[in-house]
């Protein structure tokens, strides 16, 4: 069993390495505006969009214009999505006649999908119409993902360009990413999933008679199409409340494996794209390696803990690992791997209940999210989040070798340090601040189903997931209340946009600089030393910030388990 588990993790790792370059070179071509084999088909569509929208595709935007375009687009998306939900009763494809969800729930869902979080306070199959799911939400699955990738492109251009005023055109990036990457990938991927047994229909449900003769209504819908982009765009919002643990979303071990791989595909590809753009693919592989190390660390701890199981149950003669909250179809290894992958990236799809993990096994997804989901990460957001840490790491490393710090030829100066810190300070502020508010207010304390440190973990996880735009839930927290819908909605909003604006400012400031050629005195950012330093800085800065909260949550929980203070 154990050997099989490690083999699964190893094979998965190898496949991630294999897909990185093909995915990366495709991304690079789209970013650079090159032709792909899809151009004969989609080129006219792309140009038609620009004509209708009045966009000049050749006009470069400075970082402020880029940011304004992105913010305006997201704001419009949020308003529209809110309206579509509230009015779903009057809109088509509503076979089961659902009324519009409550305002706080609709608000939460609107923010959630526009920020690429896909936190689901609603229960899909019992709240939302097919139109809302397959059109309104799925649109944002594409567009929020495309926005993330566009933003990563903007930052990559900041590093790659010399003495340039612009960092690209948001409308062009958005259109190209959607047309040439997300749509074709999702289309093929959905077909594969259908072949794997995932339903795709506009019918509301099927009726069946069970063996005992009882009548059972089985909810169906356009699942495969939503499933594909849910993974690919690291959205994570499932058609069913049970998400990828549901047999219709994730029927077999193969679909499960494919889903995990697709979560990492674009995030991994972007590292290669970065290296290619700055003129040295080894720069990209260095980032990839640091991410891979963090991933392996996480999955190793998580799987080890889950496979070890609960000592208290062992004492009672129940042998084996922790199977609570896991699908028997997937088992411990595939669940631990899925949990690590989905939280390393800001996907948030789940195939097991993270709440039921052992305390330290559950600590891994939580820490992954709190570090900023920068291990391959959310599409686009993973890379730019990681590069913010790289800026801090290179600043300290640069000083230590006695040279003004520079990364891929760009001098890192006071302005970049300030902006990077601004962006990095947002998650701790919102996660810890909001968790603290939830811990001292009646409405907040009403949320967790458990008491003691585990209940606290549930609150901490919810806000971490929201700020990190992950969207996975620890479960065990009743979040469909005005308090949590509102707070989590705000957390998702801050977590996304308060990071993006300083990040784009960095892109603009870097693009304007000249590039220094690598010299003997400059510190090489391609070797193992750099990779180690990156991992160290991320773990120490991230770890130090969240340690008190982690000690009060999962660590206290674990020690209670060991000391058998079962609460």
């Amino acid at each position, binding site marked *: 069993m154990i050997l099989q588990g490690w083999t699964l993790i190893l094979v998965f790792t190898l496949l991630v390495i294999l897909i990185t370059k093909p995915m990366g070179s495709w991304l690079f071509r789209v970013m650079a505006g090159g032709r792909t084999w899809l151009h004969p088909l989609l080129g006219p569509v792309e140009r038609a969009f620009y004509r209708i929208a009045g966009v000049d595709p050749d006009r470069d935007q400075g970082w402020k214009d880029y940011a304004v375009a992105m913010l305006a687009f997201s704001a419009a998306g949020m308003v529209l999505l809110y309206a579509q939900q509230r009015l779903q009763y009057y809109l088509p494809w509503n076979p089961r006649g659902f009324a519009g969800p409550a305002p706080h729930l609709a608000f939460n869902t609107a923010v959630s999908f526009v920020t690429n979080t896909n936190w689901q306070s609603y229960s899909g199959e019992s709240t939302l119409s097919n139109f809302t799911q397959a059109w309104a939400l799925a649109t944002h699955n594409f567009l929020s993902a495309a926005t993330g990738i566009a933003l990563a492109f903007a930052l990559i251009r900041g590093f790659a360009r010399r003495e340039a005023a612009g960092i690209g055109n948001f409308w062009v990036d958005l259109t190209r990413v959607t047309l040439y990457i997300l749509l074709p990938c999702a289309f093929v991927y959905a077909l594969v999933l259908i072949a794997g047994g995932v339903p795709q229909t506009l019918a509301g449900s099927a009726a069946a008679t069970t063996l005992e003769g009882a009548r059972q209504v089985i909810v169906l819908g356009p699942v495969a199409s939503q499933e594909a982009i849910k993974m690919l765009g690291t959205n994570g919002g499932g058609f069913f409340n049970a998400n990828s643990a549901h047999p219709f979303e994730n029927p077999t071990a193969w679909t499960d494996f494919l889903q995990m791989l697709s979560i990492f595909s674009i995030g991994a590809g972007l590292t290669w794209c970065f290296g290619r753009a700055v003129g040295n693919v080894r720069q990209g592989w260095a980032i990839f390696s640091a991410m891979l190390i963090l991933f392996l660390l996480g999955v190793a701890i998580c799987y080890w803990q889950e496979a070890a199981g609960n000592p208290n149950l062992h004492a009672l003669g129940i042998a084996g690992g922790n199977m609570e909250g896991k699908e028997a179809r997937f088992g411990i290894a595939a669940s631990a791997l899925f949990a690590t992958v989905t939280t390393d990236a800001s996907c948030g799809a789940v195939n097991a209940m993270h709440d039921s993990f052992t305390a330290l096994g559950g600590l891994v997804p939580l820490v992954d999210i709190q570090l900023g989901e920068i291990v391959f990460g959310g599409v686009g957001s993973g890379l730019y989040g990681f590069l913010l840490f790289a800026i801090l790491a290179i600043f300290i490393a640069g000083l230590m070798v*006695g040279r003004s710090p520079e990364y891929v030829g760009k001098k890192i100066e006071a302005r970049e340090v300030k902006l990077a810190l601004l962006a990095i300070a947002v998650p701790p502020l919102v996660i810890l601040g909001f968790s603290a508010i939830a811990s*001292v207010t009646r409405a907040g304390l009403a949320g967790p189903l458990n008491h003691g440190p585990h209940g606290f973990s549930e609150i901490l996880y919810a806000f971490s997931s929201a700020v990190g735009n992950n969207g996975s839930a620890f479960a065990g927290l009743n979040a469909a209340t005005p308090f949590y819908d509102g707070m989590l909605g705000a957390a998702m909003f801050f977590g996304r946009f308060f990071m993006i604006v300083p990040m784009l400012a960095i892109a603009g400031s870097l693009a304007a600089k000249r590039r220094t050629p690598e010299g003997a005195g400059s510190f090489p950012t391609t070797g193992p030393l750099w990779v180690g330093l990156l991992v160290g800085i991320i773990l120490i800065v991230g770890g130090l910030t969240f340690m008190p*909260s982690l000690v*009060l949550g999962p660590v206290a929980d674990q020690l209670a388990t060991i000391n058998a203070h079962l609460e």
Partner: protein
Amino acid sequence: MPRHEQPGISMFRRDLMLPAIGRAFVKLDPRLLWRNPVMFTTGMVALLLTILLVAGQASGSLAFRIQLAIWLWLTVIFGNFAEALAEGRGKAQAASLRAAKAQLWAKALSGAGDACRKVPAELLRAGDLVLVETGDLIPADGEVIEGVASVNEAAITGESAPVIREAGGDRSAVTAGTRVISDSIRVRVTQEPGRGFLDRMIALVEGAERQKTPNEIALTILLVGLTIIFLIAVATVPGLAFYARGDVPVPLLAALLVTLIPTTIAALLSAIGIAGMDRLVRFNVLAKSGRAVEAAGDVDVLLLDKTGTVTIGDRHATEFRPLSGVSEGELAEAAYVASLADDTPEGRSIVALAREKYGVKEAPLPADAESIPFSAHTRLSGVRTARLLLRKGAVDAVLKTVPEQTDSSAATELQRISAEIARSGGTPLAVVSNRRLLGILHLKDVVKAGMRERFAELRGMGIRTIMITGDNMLTAASIAAEAGVDDFLAEATPEDKLALIRREQQGGRLVAMCGDGTNDAPALAQADVGIAMNTGTQAAREAGNMVDLDSDPTKMIEVVGLGKQLLMTRGSLTTFSIANDVAKYFAIIPAIFVAFYPGLAMLNVMRLASPQSAMLSAIIFNALVIPSLVPLALKGVKYRPVGAGELLRRNLALYGIGGIVAPFIGIKAIDLAVGGLGLV
């Protein structure tokens, strides 16, 4: 490395320590403390605890709370002390410089004549003319406009051998406070009062004019950012703990905050900068700003003006090459006589060589001899008597005097020898007696001793050296090879120099330039780091952002090393400071939370005696680490030219890993001491 370094002022002299301790308390003034946000935060926390202590509002034993407050104050005071000590060392150095400036009087000239009146030096303005005679101190920085004098510049360079200062040429700059020991000169003052060389030097070492360098500003922002992040982490603890019905007393939160924020590096940051400037002055280099020193650490390319920097500056005769049919003695005799009246260093070297190597007897010029001075027009000089016309000069100029021999075998041989000498990097001078071609004098640029090794060292630091010269390609190539520079630019005009610097800068490289002449001034100004030689002109000294008082171009090595050292010291101590937090967490977190989650006692990996002792030990460690790192901050982290990867590996192991391990040991030791002394 410290080849040039003068003995500094001992670090812990009592007369420096005592005032520094006093100043450490004065610096508690919030208006002064505010400039260092991290220490200001620490001060505020200390103040808060003191207020709570007086108001009796906090939990925990009284002795514990008193000690906590005391150690927090000490943390701030230790930081202030480090800064005050660094400033004190600079002040002591400034005092000795001030002595040179003490009371300067000037003999102000009003017109062309020698009529002058005595005025105090501080009344002199730029443009005034002064007369300086034997034994006088030069009253202000300026330029010699008339006369030659030997000047003792020991007051600023520490070198007592006199130097020549003369009007025109590249040695016309004089510095206030130096003494004329022979002859008299007229000097035009070039500096407004209070902005002179000595004034700047004094201000620099005192730290009065110290502005934060770009990297220092960025680092300060990083430290403030980390402080804010830790403030968030600590401020939310009571809220989070409330969930567990836990109550976290304010003193404990205060202790947690102060140990987490990067107090170590923040306390030592300005001391590092001040000490760096102080070290620079001891290298006999005067920088106009700290920014220039920091930039020196980043230099990729070093341009050196050949004459006066790479070579001694004067060409010396090394060999006489007679044509066939002419004896060596005959040529030497002619060269000797032709050069007797020539007072240039070249002429003197010909005379010396003729006597020493070729045994020409010392003889005065014939009474009727008339010297022919060198003119740019003829490019010839020599001696004329009634029956003899001896001339020497550039080969083509000499050949022009005998046009009928242009195609003779003598002329061909002359040109062959001359080409040979030029190829070897020398300068050929032809000698003609009446109308007879005698041969060639071989003049050579002499490369300063030890250049090759020093340039190799620069290469090790990753710096490419380019020699710039007005010489032709052949000469330049040969000298470049002899000196061991990486590249050279021959037949360079001032415009070429500028263009080269711009081209390198366009390529993203940081350029340093060493030069001394007025024609170097534009290049010195354009370069990112311009080092003017002190022997150079006032124009060069103004254009550069550093002046090397020893006029040694390879001083760049020390300056680069110092610039790197400054950054490395800051980076290493920052790493140390952050790495320390790991152990502090393991001391304080269990101490705070164990009250409501007893299981967390397992996290007390250091087995500290009690929560109060753990907290106090962490705070004491945090405070004591500051004074114990003061020597390192003032001396700087060691720099070796070994490549960036190797440097990082070393510093990361020492200050990163060391920074994680050291506090585990330190806090445990202090905990044992606290327990042993019964402090809590």
